[in-house]
């Protein structure tokens, strides 16, 4: 069934298809319409869930933790300050091995107050033990929500899916909605391995002495390592069932791309067959802009390509290394800033490439753009690509693009 949905509605309809049983949330712009849509779906009887509106984001995550620990499939959504307020409980959900699924609408952190997109809110939660998916389109938001449950419940870790404020959250697109029945064939009912079973009472959240704590953390690391293959498999199987898959990294243009047949699953060869002088690296909606800019540049004979990164945790190190093998230069566009270090995706990518043999290790050029929702236009993307083209050695500090004097 095709529907015209905003990115926020797509997240809500994804949770509806996945039959989330408890939704606990608190309003914050630009996330609010996700939970409003869910309230509406519950009201219309299209989703049989308990809907709780609590008194803060901290309580929203606590509500999900309680419900998930009781054996229910849960969903929540937030943004920026709300996500920051949740921070304590993000750790709790992950260390408690609760497969909660949450949508975060990327919004810049305050002060100064902003409601517009950048990635610092979600990237600041990198080390909480959540898987993180960055989405490019409303369809990807819906599909990733469904995939997220499948992955989370297999590895007993929570999953965050991330969409750009307004560019996705409040922009409408045609979205194919599989519906609950078809989704149920992909996503089996939630059967928790550990939960608060009243017939067999357990204690959760007790004190863990020095001789046990490390093992809990180790098991999380093992689960994260396993998650990578599970994410790939979940995407492959989703593609086989619904005709859409995204890969964990995506190369564009790819010789396997078949623009003539939209019904076929999108081709996913991780290894580029085209030759690139420069490869842009993007996440979120900048990716679509970059695809357009790359088409224009390639018409002019520039060998520019694109690597879309969809997954931050677990980081797809091997896939990334294969995808950029033979590419001399990467231009990483970071819509975020780790002040004192640089763009966050660039740091992740540099770390992933470190153990590559010297000759296979591309030059990583770092660009900061679009903070606080400033537009990243095709012209800005082109400017970055052309700048990267000219360079033959690394920059001392990231280049800020479109900065006012």
């Amino acid at each position, binding site marked *: 069934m095709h529907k015209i949905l905003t990115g926020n509605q797509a997240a809500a309809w994804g949770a509806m298809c996945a039959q989330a049983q408890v939704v606990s949330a*608190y*309003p*914050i*712009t630009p996330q*609010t*319409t996700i*939970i*409003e849509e869910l*309230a*509406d779906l519950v*009201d219309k009887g299209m989703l049989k869930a308990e*809907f709780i*509106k609590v*008194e*803060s984001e901290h309580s929203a995550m606590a509500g999900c933790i309680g419900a998930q620990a009781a054996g229910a499939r849960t969903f929540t959504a937030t943004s920026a*300050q709300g996500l920051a*307020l949740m921070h304590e409980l993000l750790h709790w959900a992950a260390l408690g091995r609760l497969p909660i699924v949450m949508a975060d609408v990327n919004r810049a952190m*305050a*002060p100064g*107050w902003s409601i517009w997109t950048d990635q610092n809110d979600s990237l600041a939660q990198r080390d909480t033990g959540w898987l993180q998916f960055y989405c490019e389109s409303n369809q990807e938001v819906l599909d990733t929500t469904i995939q997220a449950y499948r992955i989370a419940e297999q590895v007993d870790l929570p999953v965050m899916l991330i969409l750009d404020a307004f560019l996705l959250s409040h922009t409408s697109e045609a979205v194919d909605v599989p519906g609950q029945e078809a989704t149920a064939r992909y996503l089996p009912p939630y059967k928790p391995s550990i939960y608060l079973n009243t017939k067999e009472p357990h204690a959760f959240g007790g004190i863990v002495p020095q001789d046990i704590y490390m093992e809990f953390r180790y098991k999380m690391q093992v689960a994260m390592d396993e998650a990578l293959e599970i994410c790939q498999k979940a995407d492959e199987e989703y593609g086989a069932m619904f005709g859409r898959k995204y890969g964990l990294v995506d190369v564009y243009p790819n010789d396997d791309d078949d623009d003539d047949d939209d019904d076929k699953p999108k081709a996913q060869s991780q290894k580029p067959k085209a030759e690139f002088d420069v490869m842009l690296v993007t996440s979120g909606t900048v990716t679509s802009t970059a695809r357009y800019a790359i088409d224009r540049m390639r018409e002019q004979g520039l060998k520019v390509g694109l690597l879309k990164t969809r997954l931050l945790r677990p980081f797809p190190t091997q896939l990334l290394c294969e995808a950029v093998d033979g590419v001399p230069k990467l231009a990483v566009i970071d819509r975020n800033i780790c002040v004192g270090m640089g763009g966050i995706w660039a740091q992740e990518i540099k770390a992933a490439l470190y153990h590559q043999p010297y000759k296979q290790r591309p030059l990583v050029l770092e660009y900061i753009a679009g903070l606080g929702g400033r537009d990243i236009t095709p012209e800005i993307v082109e400017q970055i690509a052309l700048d990267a083209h000219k360079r033959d050695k690394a920059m001392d500090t990231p280049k800020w693009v479109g900065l006012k004097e």
Partner: protein
Amino acid sequence: MPVSLKLENLLRMEHLPHMWCPGCGIGIIVKAMLRAIDAMGWDPRDVAVISGIGCTSRAPGYLNMNTLHTTHGRALTFATGFKLARPDKQVIVISGDGDATAIGGNHLIHSCRRNIDITEIIVNNNIYGMTGGQYSPTTPLGAKAATAPWGMVEPSFDIAKLCIGAGATYVARGHVGSGVQLERLIRGGLKHKGFAIIEALSNCHTQFGRRNKLSDPIELINHIAAKTINVKEAAKISPEEMRGKFAVGILFQEEGREEYCEAYNRLIQRAQATLH
């Protein structure tokens, strides 16, 4: 509504027009606050107005004083820090009902308990206006909201009673139907030494009224006014007759209880005298 030249000095006129909906009660309340500040004869440079998040919390952006627009629910914590650092300054907090009593409810009761010399104006319009009409802790039982399509299921807070119970030493309630009374109640709070709360019943016809057959601002303001009763009249009638009504005026006042900054200072002096 035009402002007098005197009040114009208290506003950042270059930031106007404001972002509130036409007919919003926040304008009446802010104007009452400005008249009260003006009547106190304070230099605006000695006044700090601190807010959290929401429609009401946008007010400090328009005020030509020391203003701080902080995180959701935490205005009182920033204000407490400010007041302890500069007890010589006048500190006013302006919050909405969601900001002050849901996400910030914890800080509200503890500020009451400490009796710190801050005046807080709580604009109670029974709804989260800015984010699109989700129910708040003061949405009346049965009223509709974006997240309560079948009516509010949770009982609501009586903000004034909550603050009296928590230990505030000046608690007043007014409403947008009477800006003059609001000004007088706010002035009383500003004069009071200790934690003062002025609950201002207000209209959000856009988010609350629209869902509850009160979408016309004047109709909603009249509806609010009709539910109010002067505190002296309220004392004469039975609890049954008071049901659904809100007493307005100064509901509680206690002078002479030690103020928090002074108590803290006295403690420092006592500790220093012991140590040296």
